[in-house]
C-alpha cells in the first residue's frame, strides 16, 4: 500500500496528468489508501494509473458500488487497483447522485470490469457509458428498481406460486 506521503504523491501526479480538479480527496485509513476522484474523470485517472504513472497498477481486482445514505451525493463506486509487481493496492472511488448516475465504462482498460459494472448497474442503477452489453446480471431482466440502494425495502416481495400468479400485478405485462 502506498503510505500517506506516497498517496499524496500519486494524487499530485494524477492532478498534473489528468486535470487540476480531478482528485477530490485522499484518504489513508486502516492501512489502505483511497483516492477520491470526480465522476467524469474516473476513466482518465484509471487510464493514467494503468499506463502512464510512475507506479502503475495493471490489475483491477474489484469494482463495486455502495450507498452512503443519508450523505450526499449518495452513491459510491469503488475501483480496487492492484500492482502485482510492487504488491500494492490503491482504491479509487467516486461519488454520484441518484438522479442520473452516469460513469464512463472502464471495460476498454480492464476487460474484467464487464461483469462487475453490470452488477453495479443491476443493484445501484449506475449507467456505464461505453459498456458493450449493459444489462442486469443477477436480477431478472424485467426487474424494476435497484435493490441494493439503502432506500429499497428489505423483503416484502410476493413469492409467485400457481395459486396467486393472477392476483399479482405486472405478472402478465
Amino acid at each position, binding site marked *: 500500500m502506498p503510505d500517506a506521503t506516497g498517496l499524496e504523491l500519486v494524487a499530485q501526479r494524477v492532478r498534473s496528468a489528468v486535470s487540476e480538479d480531478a482528485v477530490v480527496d485522499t484518504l489513508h485509513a486502516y492501512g489502505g489508501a483511497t483516492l477520491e476522484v470526480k465522476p467524469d474523470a474516473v476513466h482518465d485517472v484509471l487510464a493514467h494509473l494503468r499506463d502512464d504513472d510512475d507506479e502503475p497498477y495493471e*490489475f483491477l*481486482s*474489484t469494482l463495486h458500488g455502495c450507498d452512503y445514505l443519508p450523505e450526499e451525493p449518495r452513491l459510491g463506486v469503488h475501483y480496487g487497483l492492484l500492482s502485482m509487481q510492487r504488491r500494492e493496492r490503491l482504491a479509487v472511488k467516486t461519488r454520484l447522485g441518484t438522479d442520473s448516475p452516469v460513469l464512463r465504462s472502464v471495460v476498454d482498460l480492464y476487460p474484467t470490469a464487464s461483469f462487475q459494472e453490470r452488477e453495479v448497474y443491476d443493484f445501484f442503477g449506475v449507467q456505464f457509458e461505453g459498456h458493450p452489453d449493459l444489462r442486469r446480471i443477477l436480477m431478472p431482466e424485467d426487474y424494476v428498481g435497484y435493490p441494493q440502494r*439503502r432506500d429499497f425495502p428489505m423483503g416484502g416481495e410476493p413469492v409467485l406460486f400457481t395459486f396467486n400468479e393472477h392476483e399479482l400485478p405486472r405478472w402478465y405485462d
Partner: protein
Amino acid sequence: MTDNPGERTRSALKVPYREREESVTASEMAGLDPPAAATDYEFEPEAELLTINIGPHHPATHGVLRLLCTLEGETVLDLEPIIGYVHTGIEKSCEDQEYWKAITFVERMDYLAYYFNSYVYCSAVETLLDEEVPPRAQYLRVIHMELNRIASHLFWLGTAALDIGAMSMLWWALRERDGFLDLFEMSGGQRLHTRYFQVGGVAEDIPPGFEEKARKIIAGMPARIDQYEALLDRNEIWLQRMKHTGVVSREEMLALGVTGPLLRASGEPWDLRKAMPYCGYEQFDFNVPVGTVGDNYDRYRVRLEEMRESLKIAEQALDGLPEGPYITTNRKVALPPRHELATSMEALIHHFKLVTEGFRVPPGEVYKAVESPRGELGCFVLADGSAKPSRVHMRDPSFVNLQSLKRMGEGSLIADFIASVAMLDPILGGVDR
C-alpha cells in the same frame, strides 16, 4: 503403419476429429449410390450455425449456470454465461443483521469455502474495530482454512473428473473429504457452514482428540493424492482431454481479472498468502505451484500440488499451535465464557448487550482480500456507526473468473469446453450470492 491393431487405433485417433467424421458417409458404408435429390441440393455445413442452451439444469454446469452456445458442427464459436438463478440477496440481507449475525449469511455464498468467507468478513470487521486477534486463534484459523482448501479441492477433483467420465474419482475424493468434514464437526459442531470464526477469534477451542485426528488425516493424505495421480495421470482419456485444451495465456488471464489456481496455471506466481500475508501466513513455509502452458492439465496439476502444500501448512500450524486465549478478551466484542455468567454481573450485562444489540462499529470502510481455493476473495464492509453493516460486498473469485470461460471455450470442441467448465471450478452460490 503397423499391423498392431492398438497402434492403428492410436494413429487413427491422431487425425483431427472433423476429418474422420467427413470421411465416412452412410451411403458408402451401405454400398449404395447417394440419392439423386442430394446432388442438386447445395449443403454448406460451414455456414450452418446452431445455438444451443446448456443448463441451467445440467450436471456439467456445476450448479445453475446457463450457457448460451453458438456452435458450428461441434466447434464452439461463441458462448455467453447467463447467471443469477441462485441469487438470494445475501449482501442485502447482511444489511439487516447485526455484525455477528451476518457471519452466518456470508458463509453461505461460496458453499465449499465457508471458512474463507467468514474469515474475510471477520477480518474486515476486526480491522474496522481495531481488534487484536490472539495468536492461538490465528493458528486455529489457518488450520481450518487450509483443511477447508483441501476439502474444497477434493470436491472439485471428484466432480471435475466426473464430468470427464472418470466416475470412480468422485467416490475416492468424497471419501477423503468426509474425514475433513468430521474434523470440522469436532471443532465447530457442523460439517458445513460451521460459523466457527467469530469477530475477534474463533467460537471455541478445539476439543481433545482433534489434533490427533487431524494429524492422522494429514499423514495419510499424501499417499491418497499419489493414488489420485496414479488413477488420472496414466489415463489416456484423461490426458487427451486435459492437455492443450482451454489454453488461455497469462496476459489474457490478468486482463480478465482471473486469480487463484487458474492464474497460477497460466504461469503467474500470484498467491495472496505469499504476496500480502494475512493471518500469520508469513510464519509458514510453503511453495506456490505454478503451471507453464495454461491448459486444463496445468490447472489440474496446480490444484493437486496446492493440496500437498496446504497439508504442509496445516501440519506446521498444528506443530506451532501456541497456548493462550482462542478469542479476544474484549467483552464489548466477544461473548464472556459461560461460567462467568453465574458469578459476574458485568459478564451478564455484556452477554445481554451482545446478544440483543450486538456491538457497534465506528464509521469507516475497508476492503480485505484473502486467497480462497478459487482466487482472491475480497470483502468490502462499509460501517455507519450502528450495530449493522451499511454495506457488505463480496468480491467472489468465481464471479470474476467466470468471464474467462468465453475465452477458454471459443474455437474449441464442445467436449473440450465442458472440460474447461470443470477445470474453471465455478461455485454458483458464490457467483450469484
